[in-house]
Protein backbone atom coordinates (compact mmCIF):
# COMPACT_ATOMS: atom_id res chain seq x y z
CA UNK A 1 0.00 0.00 0.00
CA UNK A 2 1.48 3.30 -1.10
CA UNK A 3 2.00 5.84 1.59
CA UNK A 4 -0.49 8.62 1.37
CA UNK A 5 -0.92 11.69 3.40
CA UNK A 6 -3.72 14.22 3.78
CA UNK A 7 -3.05 17.72 2.54
CA UNK A 8 -5.07 20.74 3.57
CA UNK A 9 -4.87 23.94 1.55
CA UNK A 10 -6.37 27.16 2.92
CA UNK A 11 -7.77 29.88 0.68
CA UNK A 12 -9.10 33.27 1.70
CA UNK A 13 -11.28 33.96 -1.35
CA UNK A 14 -13.76 31.92 -3.38
CA UNK A 15 -12.34 32.50 -6.88
CA UNK A 16 -8.82 31.25 -6.21
CA UNK A 17 -10.18 28.21 -4.44
CA UNK A 18 -12.40 27.35 -7.42
CA UNK A 19 -9.42 27.63 -9.78
CA UNK A 20 -7.46 25.44 -7.38
CA UNK A 21 -10.19 22.81 -7.50
CA UNK A 22 -9.90 22.75 -11.30
CA UNK A 23 -6.12 22.42 -10.98
CA UNK A 24 -6.54 19.51 -8.61
CA UNK A 25 -8.85 17.84 -11.12
CA UNK A 26 -6.11 18.21 -13.70
CA UNK A 27 -3.61 16.69 -11.30
CA UNK A 28 -5.75 13.62 -10.79
CA UNK A 29 -7.76 14.37 -7.64
CA UNK A 30 -11.36 13.59 -8.55
CA UNK A 31 -14.38 15.19 -6.87
CA UNK A 32 -15.04 12.16 -4.66
CA UNK A 33 -11.53 12.35 -3.21
CA UNK A 34 -11.71 16.06 -2.49
CA UNK A 35 -13.37 17.63 0.55
CA UNK A 36 -14.22 21.33 0.70
CA UNK A 37 -14.63 22.69 4.22
CA UNK A 38 -15.72 26.29 4.71
CA UNK A 39 -16.99 28.74 7.29
CA UNK A 40 -20.05 29.73 5.24
CA UNK A 41 -22.10 27.49 2.97
CA UNK A 42 -20.85 27.56 -0.63
CA UNK A 43 -23.22 26.54 -3.34
CA UNK A 44 -22.15 23.57 -5.43
CA UNK A 45 -22.63 25.61 -8.61
CA UNK A 46 -20.26 28.26 -7.30
CA UNK A 47 -17.61 25.68 -6.59
CA UNK A 48 -18.21 23.59 -9.68
CA UNK A 49 -18.82 20.49 -7.62
CA UNK A 50 -21.48 17.82 -7.98
CA UNK A 51 -24.81 18.39 -6.31
CA UNK A 52 -25.09 16.36 -3.14
CA UNK A 53 -28.25 14.46 -2.46
CA UNK A 54 -29.85 14.51 0.92
CA UNK A 55 -32.58 12.24 2.22
CA UNK A 56 -33.81 14.77 4.73
CA UNK A 57 -36.91 15.88 2.76
CA UNK A 58 -38.10 12.31 2.39
CA UNK A 59 -37.46 11.60 6.04
CA UNK A 60 -39.38 14.74 6.93
CA UNK A 61 -42.37 13.61 4.88
CA UNK A 62 -42.23 10.29 6.73
CA UNK A 63 -42.24 12.18 9.98
CA UNK A 64 -45.27 14.12 8.84
CA UNK A 65 -47.08 10.84 8.20
CA UNK A 66 -46.17 9.63 11.69
CA UNK A 67 -47.56 12.85 13.15
CA UNK A 68 -50.78 12.47 11.20
CA UNK A 69 -51.21 8.89 12.38
CA UNK A 70 -50.61 10.00 15.97
CA UNK A 71 -53.33 12.62 15.59
CA UNK A 72 -55.70 10.06 14.10
CA UNK A 73 -55.10 7.85 17.10
CA UNK A 74 -55.66 10.65 19.61
CA UNK A 75 -58.84 11.97 18.05
CA UNK A 76 -60.46 8.83 16.69
CA UNK A 77 -58.68 5.91 18.30
CA UNK A 78 -59.01 6.93 21.93
CA UNK A 79 -62.71 7.86 21.88
CA UNK A 80 -63.18 4.52 20.16
CA UNK A 81 -61.53 2.79 23.10
CA UNK A 82 -62.91 4.96 25.91
CA UNK A 83 -65.96 6.87 24.65
CA UNK A 84 -67.25 9.76 26.75
CA UNK A 85 -70.10 12.12 25.87
CA UNK A 86 -69.42 15.81 26.25
CA UNK A 87 -71.39 18.92 25.40
CA UNK A 88 -73.73 17.43 22.90
CA UNK A 89 -70.80 17.11 20.47
CA UNK A 90 -70.16 13.96 18.48
CA UNK A 91 -67.85 11.42 20.12
CA UNK A 92 -65.52 11.52 17.10
CA UNK A 93 -65.04 15.26 16.51
CA UNK A 94 -63.80 16.22 13.07
CA UNK A 95 -62.85 19.93 13.45
CA UNK A 96 -60.56 19.19 16.42
CA UNK A 97 -58.95 16.54 14.24
CA UNK A 98 -58.07 19.21 11.71
CA UNK A 99 -56.39 21.29 14.38
CA UNK A 100 -54.56 18.55 16.27
CA UNK A 101 -53.77 16.79 13.00
CA UNK A 102 -52.15 19.89 11.58
CA UNK A 103 -50.05 20.51 14.69
CA UNK A 104 -48.83 16.95 15.06
CA UNK A 105 -48.14 16.64 11.33
CA UNK A 106 -45.96 19.74 11.44
CA UNK A 107 -44.26 18.49 14.60
CA UNK A 108 -43.52 15.20 12.90
CA UNK A 109 -42.27 16.99 9.79
CA UNK A 110 -39.91 19.26 11.67
CA UNK A 111 -38.84 16.71 14.25
CA UNK A 112 -37.84 14.23 11.57
CA UNK A 113 -36.11 16.97 9.57
CA UNK A 114 -33.96 17.70 12.60
CA UNK A 115 -33.30 14.01 13.23
CA UNK A 116 -32.54 13.68 9.55
CA UNK A 117 -29.93 16.38 9.88
CA UNK A 118 -28.30 14.47 12.72
CA UNK A 119 -28.47 11.18 10.86
CA UNK A 120 -27.34 12.51 7.50
CA UNK A 121 -24.49 14.53 8.91
CA UNK A 122 -23.65 11.68 11.27
CA UNK A 123 -23.84 14.15 14.11
CA UNK A 124 -23.00 14.27 16.94
CA UNK A 125 -19.57 12.77 16.38
CA UNK A 126 -16.63 13.57 18.56
CA UNK A 127 -13.97 11.33 17.04
CA UNK A 128 -10.84 12.92 15.63
CA UNK A 129 -11.37 14.69 12.34
CA UNK A 130 -9.34 16.65 9.83
CA UNK A 131 -9.89 20.30 10.66
CA UNK A 132 -8.13 23.57 11.33
CA UNK A 133 -9.65 26.44 13.34
CA UNK A 134 -8.97 28.90 10.50
CA UNK A 135 -11.96 27.45 8.71
CA UNK A 136 -14.41 29.02 11.15
CA UNK A 137 -12.54 32.29 10.57
CA UNK A 138 -13.84 32.27 7.01
CA UNK A 139 -11.12 30.35 5.17
CA UNK A 140 -11.95 27.75 2.57
CA UNK A 141 -10.11 24.49 3.01
CA UNK A 142 -9.42 21.92 0.30
CA UNK A 143 -8.65 18.54 1.83
CA UNK A 144 -7.46 15.57 -0.17
CA UNK A 145 -5.15 12.57 0.03
CA UNK A 146 -2.08 12.29 -2.13
CA UNK A 147 0.91 9.96 -2.30
CA UNK A 148 3.78 11.11 -0.11
CA UNK A 149 6.15 11.55 -3.05
CA UNK A 150 3.86 14.04 -4.74
CA UNK A 151 3.47 16.27 -1.67
CA UNK A 152 5.85 18.96 -2.91
CA UNK A 153 4.19 18.98 -6.34
CA UNK A 154 0.75 19.61 -4.90
CA UNK A 155 2.06 22.18 -2.46
CA UNK A 156 3.71 24.20 -5.19
CA UNK A 157 0.67 23.97 -7.45
CA UNK A 158 -1.72 25.14 -4.77
CA UNK A 159 0.52 27.90 -3.48
CA UNK A 160 0.81 29.18 -7.02
CA UNK A 161 -3.00 29.25 -7.26
CA UNK A 162 -3.11 31.56 -4.25
CA UNK A 163 -3.34 29.29 -1.22
CA UNK A 164 -2.50 30.94 2.09
CA UNK A 165 -0.89 27.76 3.29
CA UNK A 166 -0.69 24.10 2.41
CA UNK A 167 0.14 21.58 5.11
CA UNK A 168 -0.25 17.91 5.86
CA UNK A 169 -2.83 17.27 8.58
CA UNK A 170 -3.77 14.44 10.86
CA UNK A 171 -7.21 13.79 12.21
CA UNK A 172 -7.42 15.39 15.65
CA UNK A 173 -10.12 16.00 18.18
CA UNK A 174 -11.91 19.22 17.32
Amino acid at each position, binding site marked *: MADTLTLLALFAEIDPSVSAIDKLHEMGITDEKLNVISGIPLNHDVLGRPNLRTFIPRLAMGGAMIGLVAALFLIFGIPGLYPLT*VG*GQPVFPFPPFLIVGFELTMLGLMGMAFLGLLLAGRLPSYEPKVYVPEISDGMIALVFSCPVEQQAQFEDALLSMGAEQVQPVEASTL
Partner: protein
Amino acid sequence: MSGAKSRNTPSKWGMVINQDLCMGCQACVAACAMENNISFIGEQDVNTGRSMQWIHTERFWNGQYPNVYTNFQPILCQQCGNAPCESTCPVYASVHSDSEQINAQIYNRCVGTRYCANNCPYQVRVFNWRDYSRPVPLNNQLNPDVTVRRRGIMEKCTFCIQRIHRAELTAQTEGRQLQDGEVEPACVQACPAYAIVFGRLDDPNSQVSQLAKQGRAFRLLEELDTQPKVIYLTGDSNHGHNG
Protein backbone atom coordinates in the same frame (compact mmCIF):
# COMPACT_ATOMS: atom_id res chain seq x y z
CA MET B 1 -76.37 21.19 2.15
CA SER B 2 -78.97 21.13 4.91
CA GLY B 3 -78.80 23.70 7.66
CA ALA B 4 -77.49 22.96 11.11
CA LYS B 5 -79.84 20.84 13.13
CA SER B 6 -80.47 21.48 16.77
CA ARG B 7 -79.16 18.50 18.59
CA ASN B 8 -82.05 17.30 20.71
CA THR B 9 -80.51 15.54 23.63
CA PRO B 10 -82.40 12.88 25.55
CA SER B 11 -84.00 13.78 28.88
CA LYS B 12 -84.30 11.83 32.08
CA TRP B 13 -84.09 13.60 35.44
CA GLY B 14 -85.42 17.14 35.51
CA MET B 15 -86.68 19.84 37.79
CA VAL B 16 -89.45 22.42 37.71
CA ILE B 17 -89.19 25.56 39.84
CA ASN B 18 -92.38 27.47 40.41
CA GLN B 19 -91.46 31.12 40.86
CA ASP B 20 -95.02 31.89 41.90
CA LEU B 21 -94.54 29.80 45.03
CA CYS B 22 -90.92 30.63 45.81
CA MET B 23 -90.62 33.25 48.56
CA GLY B 24 -86.83 33.39 48.79
CA CYS B 25 -86.50 31.75 52.21
CA GLN B 26 -83.28 30.03 51.09
CA ALA B 27 -84.08 26.80 52.88
CA CYS B 28 -82.98 25.10 49.68
CA VAL B 29 -79.59 26.83 49.90
CA ALA B 30 -79.07 25.70 53.47
CA ALA B 31 -80.24 22.15 52.81
CA CYS B 32 -78.01 21.83 49.77
CA ALA B 33 -75.01 23.04 51.76
CA MET B 34 -75.65 20.49 54.46
CA GLU B 35 -76.37 17.59 52.11
CA ASN B 36 -73.35 18.13 49.87
CA ASN B 37 -70.61 18.95 52.39
CA ILE B 38 -70.20 22.46 51.07
CA SER B 39 -67.51 24.44 52.89
CA PHE B 40 -68.11 27.48 55.05
CA ILE B 41 -66.33 30.30 53.26
CA GLY B 42 -66.35 33.12 55.71
CA GLU B 43 -67.45 36.69 55.30
CA GLN B 44 -64.38 38.03 53.52
CA ASP B 45 -64.39 35.55 50.69
CA VAL B 46 -68.17 35.81 50.26
CA ASN B 47 -67.73 39.56 49.88
CA THR B 48 -65.28 38.95 47.03
CA GLY B 49 -67.84 36.79 45.27
CA ARG B 50 -66.50 33.37 46.12
CA SER B 51 -69.58 32.07 47.90
CA MET B 52 -69.98 28.36 47.37
CA GLN B 53 -73.70 28.08 46.96
CA TRP B 54 -74.64 25.30 44.57
CA ILE B 55 -78.12 26.79 44.51
CA HIS B 56 -78.63 30.48 45.14
CA THR B 57 -81.68 32.70 44.94
CA GLU B 58 -81.74 35.85 42.90
CA ARG B 59 -84.16 38.54 43.92
CA PHE B 60 -85.84 40.80 41.38
CA TRP B 61 -87.73 43.90 42.39
CA ASN B 62 -90.76 44.78 40.28
CA GLY B 63 -93.14 47.66 40.15
CA GLN B 64 -93.08 51.15 41.59
CA TYR B 65 -93.54 52.19 45.18
CA PRO B 66 -95.96 51.53 46.83
CA ASN B 67 -96.81 48.59 44.55
CA VAL B 68 -93.46 46.90 44.82
CA TYR B 69 -93.13 43.13 44.84
CA THR B 70 -90.33 40.67 44.48
CA ASN B 71 -89.68 37.73 42.28
CA PHE B 72 -87.30 35.06 43.49
CA GLN B 73 -85.40 32.82 41.14
CA PRO B 74 -83.39 29.93 42.55
CA ILE B 75 -80.49 29.30 40.16
CA LEU B 76 -78.72 25.98 40.15
CA CYS B 77 -76.86 23.91 37.62
CA GLN B 78 -79.22 23.54 34.70
CA GLN B 79 -77.75 20.13 33.76
CA CYS B 80 -77.71 21.18 30.13
CA GLY B 81 -78.09 18.68 27.33
CA ASN B 82 -75.66 20.71 25.21
CA ALA B 83 -73.52 21.69 28.14
CA PRO B 84 -70.91 24.34 27.21
CA CYS B 85 -68.92 23.29 30.26
CA GLU B 86 -68.41 19.70 29.20
CA SER B 87 -66.55 20.14 25.95
CA THR B 88 -64.06 22.60 27.41
CA CYS B 89 -62.67 20.53 30.24
CA PRO B 90 -59.28 19.27 29.05
CA VAL B 91 -59.23 16.28 31.39
CA TYR B 92 -62.82 15.00 31.10
CA ALA B 93 -63.69 16.06 34.65
CA SER B 94 -67.03 17.36 33.43
CA VAL B 95 -68.79 14.75 31.36
CA HIS B 96 -72.34 13.94 30.39
CA SER B 97 -73.73 11.09 32.40
CA ASP B 98 -75.49 8.88 29.87
CA SER B 99 -77.41 7.00 32.56
CA GLU B 100 -78.83 10.01 34.36
CA GLN B 101 -78.63 12.51 31.46
CA ILE B 102 -77.19 15.15 33.74
CA ASN B 103 -73.81 16.84 33.83
CA ALA B 104 -71.42 14.93 36.05
CA GLN B 105 -68.51 16.62 37.82
CA ILE B 106 -65.70 14.21 38.66
CA TYR B 107 -63.96 15.84 41.63
CA ASN B 108 -60.81 13.81 41.73
CA ARG B 109 -60.14 14.37 38.03
CA CYS B 110 -60.40 18.16 38.13
CA VAL B 111 -57.08 19.97 37.72
CA GLY B 112 -58.55 23.41 38.18
CA THR B 113 -58.23 25.06 34.77
CA ARG B 114 -61.60 26.73 35.46
CA TYR B 115 -62.54 26.77 31.79
CA CYS B 116 -65.88 25.13 32.58
CA ALA B 117 -66.83 27.89 34.97
CA ASN B 118 -65.94 30.55 32.43
CA ASN B 119 -68.05 28.84 29.83
CA CYS B 120 -71.13 28.27 31.95
CA PRO B 121 -73.64 30.88 30.77
CA TYR B 122 -75.56 30.55 34.02
CA GLN B 123 -72.41 31.00 36.13
CA VAL B 124 -73.51 28.22 38.47
CA ARG B 125 -70.16 26.53 38.84
CA VAL B 126 -68.31 27.04 42.07
CA PHE B 127 -64.57 26.73 42.71
CA ASN B 128 -62.70 25.74 45.85
CA TRP B 129 -60.42 28.76 46.15
CA ARG B 130 -58.93 27.60 49.43
CA ASP B 131 -59.07 24.73 51.88
CA TYR B 132 -61.72 25.83 54.30
CA SER B 133 -61.67 24.54 57.83
CA ARG B 134 -64.52 22.73 59.49
CA PRO B 135 -64.03 23.35 63.20
CA VAL B 136 -65.22 20.68 65.60
CA PRO B 137 -68.14 19.85 66.01
CA LEU B 138 -69.14 20.89 62.45
CA ASN B 139 -67.26 17.91 61.07
CA ASN B 140 -69.96 15.68 62.54
CA GLN B 141 -72.40 17.15 60.08
CA LEU B 142 -70.58 15.74 57.04
CA ASN B 143 -72.64 13.54 54.73
CA PRO B 144 -70.78 10.25 54.20
CA ASP B 145 -72.40 9.80 50.76
CA VAL B 146 -70.65 12.83 49.30
CA THR B 147 -66.93 13.44 48.73
CA VAL B 148 -65.32 16.33 50.57
CA ARG B 149 -63.49 18.52 48.04
CA ARG B 150 -60.15 20.21 48.62
CA ARG B 151 -58.70 23.38 47.13
CA GLY B 152 -58.34 23.63 43.38
CA ILE B 153 -61.45 21.62 42.49
CA MET B 154 -64.55 22.80 40.68
CA GLU B 155 -67.94 21.71 41.96
CA LYS B 156 -71.61 22.33 41.28
CA CYS B 157 -75.10 20.99 41.81
CA THR B 158 -75.40 17.31 40.95
CA PHE B 159 -79.19 16.95 41.32
CA CYS B 160 -78.17 15.10 44.54
CA ILE B 161 -77.05 12.15 42.47
CA GLN B 162 -76.25 10.30 45.68
CA ARG B 163 -79.95 10.45 46.56
CA ILE B 164 -80.90 9.29 43.06
CA HIS B 165 -78.59 6.32 43.36
CA ARG B 166 -79.77 5.50 46.88
CA ALA B 167 -83.41 5.54 45.79
CA GLU B 168 -82.65 3.41 42.74
CA LEU B 169 -80.78 0.87 44.85
CA THR B 170 -83.60 0.77 47.41
CA ALA B 171 -86.14 0.18 44.68
CA GLN B 172 -83.95 -2.49 43.13
CA THR B 173 -83.51 -4.34 46.42
CA GLU B 174 -87.23 -4.18 47.01
CA GLY B 175 -87.80 -5.47 43.52
CA ARG B 176 -89.97 -2.60 42.31
CA GLN B 177 -89.85 0.47 40.08
CA LEU B 178 -89.10 3.96 41.35
CA GLN B 179 -92.21 5.99 42.06
CA ASP B 180 -92.61 9.53 40.88
CA GLY B 181 -91.64 11.85 43.71
CA GLU B 182 -89.63 9.19 45.51
CA VAL B 183 -86.31 10.86 44.66
CA GLU B 184 -86.02 14.20 46.42
CA PRO B 185 -82.83 16.24 46.18
CA ALA B 186 -82.08 18.20 49.34
CA CYS B 187 -83.50 21.45 47.97
CA VAL B 188 -86.75 19.75 46.97
CA GLN B 189 -87.04 18.15 50.37
CA ALA B 190 -86.40 21.36 52.26
CA CYS B 191 -88.60 23.75 50.31
CA PRO B 192 -91.58 24.66 52.57
CA ALA B 193 -93.63 25.96 49.65
CA TYR B 194 -93.17 22.90 47.42
CA ALA B 195 -91.84 25.32 44.83
CA ILE B 196 -89.29 22.82 43.48
CA VAL B 197 -90.49 19.60 41.90
CA PHE B 198 -88.12 16.84 40.75
CA GLY B 199 -88.71 13.80 38.65
CA ARG B 200 -88.43 12.04 35.30
CA LEU B 201 -88.92 14.33 32.30
CA ASP B 202 -89.06 11.29 30.02
CA ASP B 203 -92.13 9.98 31.89
CA PRO B 204 -95.13 11.91 30.52
CA ASN B 205 -97.18 11.10 33.62
CA SER B 206 -94.73 12.47 36.17
CA GLN B 207 -95.54 15.67 37.99
CA VAL B 208 -92.48 17.30 36.54
CA SER B 209 -93.52 16.58 32.96
CA GLN B 210 -97.03 17.84 33.58
CA LEU B 211 -95.75 21.10 35.08
CA ALA B 212 -93.23 21.57 32.31
CA LYS B 213 -96.02 21.53 29.72
CA GLN B 214 -97.69 24.61 31.28
CA GLY B 215 -97.90 27.85 29.38
CA ARG B 216 -95.94 29.59 32.11
CA ALA B 217 -92.95 27.33 31.54
CA PHE B 218 -89.67 28.80 30.28
CA ARG B 219 -86.00 27.95 30.38
CA LEU B 220 -83.18 30.34 31.25
CA LEU B 221 -81.16 31.73 28.35
CA GLU B 222 -83.14 29.60 25.91
CA GLU B 223 -81.54 31.33 22.93
CA LEU B 224 -78.28 29.56 23.67
CA ASP B 225 -79.79 26.13 23.01
CA THR B 226 -78.10 24.62 26.02
CA GLN B 227 -81.23 22.44 26.52
CA PRO B 228 -81.35 22.73 30.30
CA LYS B 229 -83.19 20.22 32.44
CA VAL B 230 -84.48 22.90 34.82
CA ILE B 231 -87.77 24.47 33.81
CA TYR B 232 -89.06 27.63 35.45
CA LEU B 233 -92.68 28.65 35.81
CA THR B 234 -93.03 32.42 35.73
CA GLY B 235 -94.17 34.15 38.86
CA ASP B 236 -95.55 37.32 37.31
CA SER B 237 -99.06 36.83 38.60
CA ASN B 238 -99.01 40.08 40.56
CA HIS B 239 -98.96 38.15 43.83
CA GLY B 240 -102.51 38.97 44.82
CA HIS B 241 -102.16 42.73 44.53
CA ASN B 242 -105.31 44.39 43.40
CA GLY B 243 -105.50 46.96 40.69
